[in-house]
């Protein structure tokens, strides 16, 4: 207690705290090689990655993210149904008062759909050709900007 005034974020803030990420596959999309590669990249960057497995609904993903108290939900989508699924994910996050959690989208997402994803609360879109460091830095910068909660 002496080290920290009540109410302030503790010393061990975003700079040293462990970042927790939920890596999820939404809807009818059975391809999770990419999601597993990303999970491994984040693990190797020192993050704790909760992997949900395939065919999850947005409300299942949000319920898991709340229990796991993750900083970021990373969603990989290759099915083409990203616009409605991210809209639903954003709605569930607001409904469960969990919209402090960042949403990072990856997979196959055409640029003309970006605006719709921003409206749904997505915080970053990682193009499929992104290098590993880029994914890691994006997440670290988002969490550092928000700080510990």
């Amino acid at each position, binding site marked *: *207690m002496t080290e920290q005034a*009540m109410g302030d974020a503790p010393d061990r803030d975003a700079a040293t705290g462990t970042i927790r990420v939920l890596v999820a596959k939404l809807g009818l999309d059975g391809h999770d090689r990419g999601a597993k590669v990303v999970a*491994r990249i984040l693990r190797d*960057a*020192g993050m704790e*990655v909760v992997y949900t497995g395939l065919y999850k609904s947005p409300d299942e993903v949000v319920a898991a993210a709340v229990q796991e*108290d993750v900083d970021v939900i990373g969603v990989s989508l290759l099915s083409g149904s990203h616009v409605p699924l991210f809209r639903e994910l954003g709605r569930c996050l607001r409904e469960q008062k969990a919209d402090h959690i960042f949403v990072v989208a990856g997979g196959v997402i055409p640029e003309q759909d970006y605006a719709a994803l921003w409206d749904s609360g997505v915080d970053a879109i990682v193009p499929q050709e*992104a*290098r590993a460091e880029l994914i890691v830095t994006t997440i670290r910068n988002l969490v550092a900007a928000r700080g*510990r909660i």
Partner: protein
Amino acid sequence: MTVSMPSRPVKRAAYRPSTELVPEILSGNVAAIARMITRAEAGYPEAAPALAEIYRHTGKAHVVGITGVPGAGKSTLVSSLIRAFASEGHKVGVVAVDPSSPFSGGAILGDRVRMSEAASSSQAFVRSMATRGHLGGLARSTLQAVDVLDAAGYSPIIIETVGVGQDEVEVVTAAHSIVVLSAPGLGDDIQAIKAGILEIADIHAVSKSDKPEAAVTVSALRGMMTLGSERAGSKWTPPVLAVSAVSGERLGELKDAISRHWSHLRESGELVERQRGICRTRILGAAKYLFQRKFDERAGEIGEHIQAVVNRDMDPAGAARLLLGWTNEGQAT
């Protein structure tokens, strides 16, 4: 090739004092429970008084440890147990531990993959936890997470250990009832009479009973039990149950055995001894952690001790005694 980001500002959220979260935890708020577990794991000094307050509301839950080798089927079994207990109206808590990388410190926490259906029940709270360097099969703050769930009214609370080898038996001083899950086909009856993990079982479960090799494992374990099975002073004889998550075979019996063991502990008075053992281990564990933190924080002072030990002016145990403030001769080395 860059990451695209929206033009709106980055999301913000305020840090809420831990003591503010306590009443929400006691009334079962899932987000508050989750946040407090995060703070316990991080070891924030700010959370210490709140955790102390939470501890005063614990002691009601039945804590069940599930351990076994990697791939034995622990997460699948936990998933079945969540369903079985939830169907009787219990609020089931789960803390599932997976290893952290010794190199990066990161972790893949994959236990939810096998639990997804059960875990999304409103009757269950599942938390994945990385060991963060702690050895023995659990994480340092596993039992603080159990406290938070206990105070929030969850019972039973299931601790799933990391996949263990033969000697990671820390769970025995963490839980009231220990289920050791053995997988078929992993060894002969010599494995079964070795010291270590098999000795700590209150209940033996053999997974994948739909496979023919399961019968061999069951008979090796039963053979071992005929040589004497009780933990010192206990009247409980650990049952050996072959279960299958695929067919659902005997899962009900396993759930009943867990409940029966809990009744046995309370009626026989053995629970008192177990609880004392758990508290003893926790005090010692907390002392080790606090000492480690002090060690990390006082790097300068400790540097002088290190140099003294390098120079052979002092021995390592003597330096440790100095750091602990034990300057008297004749104390344990």
